[in-house]
C-alpha cells in the first residue's frame, strides 16, 4: 500500500486486449504506474483489488488479474456495465488512469503451499483467480503446490477469456484444465453444462488435502459451494471472493459493510466457514 489517502496515483495504460466482444464486452488493461518510486513500492497479492479512477468521472474497484510475479505492471479485466467501466473501455494505450490501492486481503497462497488446488471459475470470475493461477503455475512457485485442477465455465466459446493463457496452463506439470459452456454448440469439444453439475464427473474431488477456489456470478458460487459441501468438503477449504459495492477501500465509507466485516478491508477473500457466520446480505 502506497499511501496517498483517498487520492489516486497516475497510471498509464500500456496494453489493451479485447477478450470477448459479441455477448459481453470484456477487455483486459495492462496498467503501469507512472512514478518510478511509487511503482517500486506498489506490491500487490493475488486476491487484492485496486480502485481505478477515470479522472473527473468516478472510480470503481477491480481485482488484479495478473500475478505479482509479473512486476512493473498489472492487468485488470473489465466488463462493460456502467458509467466508469464504459469510460475505461473507451481508453486506449497511452491514456492515463488513476490508481488507488492495493486494498483488501488476499488469497491464502502461503497457507495452501503443499496442498492440492482446485479452481472453479465462471466468466469474468476467472480474472481474480488468474492472478493466483499464474502465481502458482509460475516456474518459480510450481513445485511448492500439489496437483492443480481447473474447471473454467463460460457462457459460450465467444465469451472465453485469457485464451492465450490456456496452453501454458494445460502444459504446466501436474495440472488439469477443463472447459465448459452453457449450451452445446458446433465445433465445441469440451464439456457442456453448468459447472456445479460437472464437478463430480469432471474433477477428482476425493483427493485429500485440497483447497477450492471459486469465483463467478453469485448464483454460480452458491450452487458450487452447496455441491462441494454435499461432497463432504469442509467449508474452511472453500474459498471465494465477494462482490460488494466498494468505494473507499479502507473500511470506512460503509457501503460494503456486511456484519462486522468491511468487504474492502476484511475481504474480499472469505472462506465458506466465514460466510456462513455472516448475515446473508450479499
Amino acid at each position, binding site marked *: *500500500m502506497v*499511501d*496517498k*489517502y*483517498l*487520492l*489516486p*496515483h*497516475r497510471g498509464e495504460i500500456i496494453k489493451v486486449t479485447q477478450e470477448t466482444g459479441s455477448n459481453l464486452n470484456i477487455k483486459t488493461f495492462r496498467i503501469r504506474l507512472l512514478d518510478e518510486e511509487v511503482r517500486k513500492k506498489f506490491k500487490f497479492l493475488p486476491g487484492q483489488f485496486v480502485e481505478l*479512477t477515470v*479522472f*473527473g*468521472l*468516478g*472510480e*470503481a474497484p477491480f481485482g488484479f488479474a495478473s500475478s505479482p510475479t509479473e512486476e512493473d505492471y498489472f492487468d485488470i479485466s473489465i466488463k462493460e*456495465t*456502467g458509467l*466508469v*467501466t464504459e469510460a475505461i473501455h473507451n481508453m486506449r494505450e497511452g491514456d*492515463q488512469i*488513476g490508481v488507488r490501492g492495493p486494498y483488501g486481503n488476499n488469497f491464502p497462497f502461503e497457507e495452501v503451499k503443499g496442498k492440492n488446488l482446485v479452481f472453479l471459475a465462471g466468466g469474468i470470475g476467472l480474472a481474480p483467480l488468474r492472478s493466483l493461477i499464474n502465481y502458482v503455475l509460475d516456474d518459480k512457485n510450481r513445485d511448492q503446490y500439489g496437483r492443480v485442477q481447473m474447471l473454467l465455465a463460460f457462457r459460450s466459446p465467444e465469451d472465453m477469456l485469457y485464451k492465450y493463457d490456456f496452453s501454458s496452463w494445460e502444459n504446466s506439470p501436474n495440472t488439469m484444465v477443463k472447459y465448459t459452456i452453457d449450451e452445446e454448440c458446433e465445433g465445441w469439444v469440451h464439456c457442456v453444462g453448468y459447472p456445479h453439475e460437472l464437478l463430480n464427473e469432471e474433477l477428482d474431488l476425493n483427493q485429500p488435502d485440497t483447497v477450492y477456489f471459486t469465483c463467478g456470478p*453469485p448464483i454460480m458460487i452458491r450452487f458450487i459451494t452447496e455441491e462441494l459441501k454435499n461432497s463432504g468438503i469442509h467449508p474452511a477449504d472453500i474459498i471465494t471472493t465477494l*462482490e*460488494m*459495492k466498494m*468505494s*473507499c477501500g*479502507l*473500511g*470506512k*465509507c*460503509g*457501503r460494503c*459493510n*456486511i*456484519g*462486522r466485516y468491511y468487504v474492502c*478491508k476484511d475481504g474480499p477473500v472469505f472462506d465458506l466457514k466465514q460466510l456462513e*457466520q*455472516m*448475515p446473508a*446480505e*450479499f
Partner: protein
Amino acid sequence: MLKVIGKNELGKLLEKLNDKFRIIAPVIRQYGKKERVEYHQVEDFDEIFLDRQPDTPPKKFFLPQNERLGEEKSGEQVFETGDRKTLIFGVRSCDLKAIDILKPVFLDNDFTDTYFEKRLENTVMFGLGCSKRQENCFCDSLGIDPLDAENIPVYMYDDGERLWFDVRAGELEEFFADLPDGNSEELERLKKDWQSGFEDTKIGIEVPIPFPELVAFNAPFWKEVAANCLGCGVCTYYCPTCFCFGFFWEKREEEIDKWRTWDSCMFPLFTKHGSGHNPRETQDQRTRQRIMHKFSYHPHNFEGVPACSACGRCISQCPVNIDLRVILKTAEKHLKDEEGVKSGG
C-alpha cells in the same frame, strides 16, 4: 481549577478566547416557523444559547458534509482548517462521546484519515453538563455520564444563573486565572440534584451490546419496527456518529477536485451494484443495517462500544417519529427471550 461566573459575564471570557480560537457555539436560528439551535461561528456572544441540546451535532466540524480532498490528477491533498484553532463551545456529553466513537474508525493504524486527524488536532471542545434530560436522549442508559466526560480540557455546568468551569488543561488556565473560584462542594450538591433528575427518568436499556450478530439479524421484528419508516436520511444525517460517505468530482478548467460527501445506508442507491443487484433492497433491510451497525457490528469491532451516543436526535428529527428507544426495547425483549431459550432450554 474550578471557576464560576455569572452567565452575563461569558462575553468577556470569550472575547479573550476569540484571539486564539475561532469560536463555534450553539445559537438560535429561526427558519419560517421552525426555531432551531445550531452550532455556528459566533461574533456576538450574546447570541449563544445553552438552554437545550442543539438540533445539529458538531460532527460537521470533523466530517463536513462536503469536504474537498484535493486535486485528483496531481494527487495533491488539500486541508482547509483555517488559521486559528477551532473552539467548539458547550458540547454535551453525548456529542463528546460521539467524537470519541469516530476516533478509532478514522484514526486506525492501517489508514489514518488525515483530513479527520487534522481537524481533530485543530479543535478544542468545551464540554457542557446537562442539568436536565433533553428531549429524547437516553445517554445514561448507554453508560454515558451526562454530567462529565473524559479527556476534555474544560467541562462546564450551567445552573441557570451561573456557568461553572472545570478547567483541566494547563494551557488554558491563563484564560480563567482572574475569574472567581467556584466552591466544589456547592457544585457537587448541584450535580447530585441534576443526577437524581436523570435517575428518575432513566429508561434503562438492557439489551446485550453487541447484539448477537446472526440472532439479531435474523430476528423477526425488523419489518415491524421499520414499517412506518419513510426511507429518508434524516436519522443518519443528524446522527453524531454516522460516518458513511461517498465521493463526487468537480471539474474546474483542467483540474479535477475530488470531494467527499455524506452518504446514508438508508438510501437504496447506497449499496446498489452496477449490475442492478441490491443486497439491501427493502427499507426494513436498510433500517436493520443502521441499527445493527450501531449496536452489533460496530461494537464487535471496537471494544464493545456501540456507535450511538444516545443523543436522541434521530428520534426528535424523524418525520414520522420513529423511536430508537422503542426499537432497542423491542430488540431487548426479543434477544433476551432468545437467550432464555438458549440457556434455559
